[in-house]
């Protein structure tokens, strides 16, 4: 198919879609006129029911925890997929870590980047941990915190320390952390069954003060495990991509 045929087919498809889209919009409530009632009910009950003042986290890890479980496994499988696709192929060997991308001038890491990256590692770990442990009260949670924690690990690489980066991201540890994080989410859900309750029912004590660190029962716990899984998954995917760029090369080069 030539590019111009492709373009015209695409434009025709978009035009067709536009027709259905406009048709589908007829009769929808206007912008800002949310019809409810699902969101309204959750917003007005979550603080009482789950002792979580961050209602988005309550939806994520409690009311619709089952969706989040599926989502977490998408991440899990994607990380496994990246590791599988980027494995060392036949005819490839591991070399000394050097940027092998052609046509790019090789320059050392500047001192400014080095210093800033090293200085930021600590605060990033702290911030990531803060986000992971405050799902019940703020726009935070394991997903956000996990990504920030993984970014802290990437800062070590940015500081020009690929060897140090590899030392703190051993494949065995990351794979274990990923599996433990994902598995614990499933286990927390299953433990409700032992009490004769539905899967992922919030069975832990909810604490006295909604939004406090010890409140919200399984919401905080699941957020922690999600943080472990997400940080490990992202650190692993970054490590695999860096391995491709720096270490793995064809035999004979």
């Amino acid at each position: 198919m030539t590019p111009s045929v492709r373009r015209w087919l695409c434009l025709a498809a978009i035009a067709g879609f536009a027709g259905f889209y406009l048709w589908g919009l007829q009769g929808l409530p206007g912008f800002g006129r949310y019809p409810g009632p699902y969101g309204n009910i959750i917003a007005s009950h979550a603080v009482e029911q789950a002792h979580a003042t961050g209602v988005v986290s309550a939806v994520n890890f409690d009311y619709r925890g089952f969706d989040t479980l599926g989502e977490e496994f998408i991440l899990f499988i994607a990380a496994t997929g990246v590791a599988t696709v980027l494995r060392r192929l036949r005819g490839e060997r591991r070399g000394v870590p050097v940027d092998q991308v052609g046509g790019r001038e090789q320059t050392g890491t500047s001192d400014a980047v080095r210093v800033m990256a090293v200085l930021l590692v600590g605060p990033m770990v702290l911030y990531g941990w803060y986000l992971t442990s405050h799902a019940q009260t703020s726009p935070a949670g394991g997903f956000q915190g996990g990504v920030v924690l993984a970014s802290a690990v990437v800062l070590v690489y940015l500081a020009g320390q690929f060897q140090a980066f590899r030392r703190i991201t051993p494949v065995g540890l990351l794979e274990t952390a990923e599996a433990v994080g994902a598995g614990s989410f499933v286990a927390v859900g299953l433990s409700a069954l032992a009490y004769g309750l539905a899967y992922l029912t919030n069975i832990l004590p909810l604490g006295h003060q909604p939004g406090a660190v010890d409140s919200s029962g399984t919401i905080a716990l699941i957020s922690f495990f999600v943080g472990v899984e997400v940080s490990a998954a992202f650190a692993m995917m970054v490590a695999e991509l860096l391995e491709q760029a720096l270490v793995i090369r064809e035999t004979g080069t």
Partner: protein
Amino acid sequence: MSALFFAVVAWVAGAGLYGIVTSRHSVHQVIALIVLQTSTYVLLLGVGYKAGGVAPYFSDISRHARTVDPVVQALALTDVVVEAAVTTLLLAFIIQAHKRFGTVDPQQFSQLEG
């Protein structure tokens, strides 16, 4: 206002789709996919918006405050994470495709397979 909102969603989605179809570079194509997916965030957050509503975090506001729909916000969060994971996986495929075919032009992949 309503029309503008749905037009933004359609525009972002259309731009992303056009980018995917006409792309001559796989990395560009993945970025176009991200643009296409971004339209779903706009759509999700938009349908849950309530005129005058605030964010559904009750730490420092009244329990009875008028808030936007928390459910679509949770869905958008899900959407972002899935996008990040899928993007990484696609980039991994592009690296291997480049090694095997020596090109990252998606329009040449089909010719190479034969």
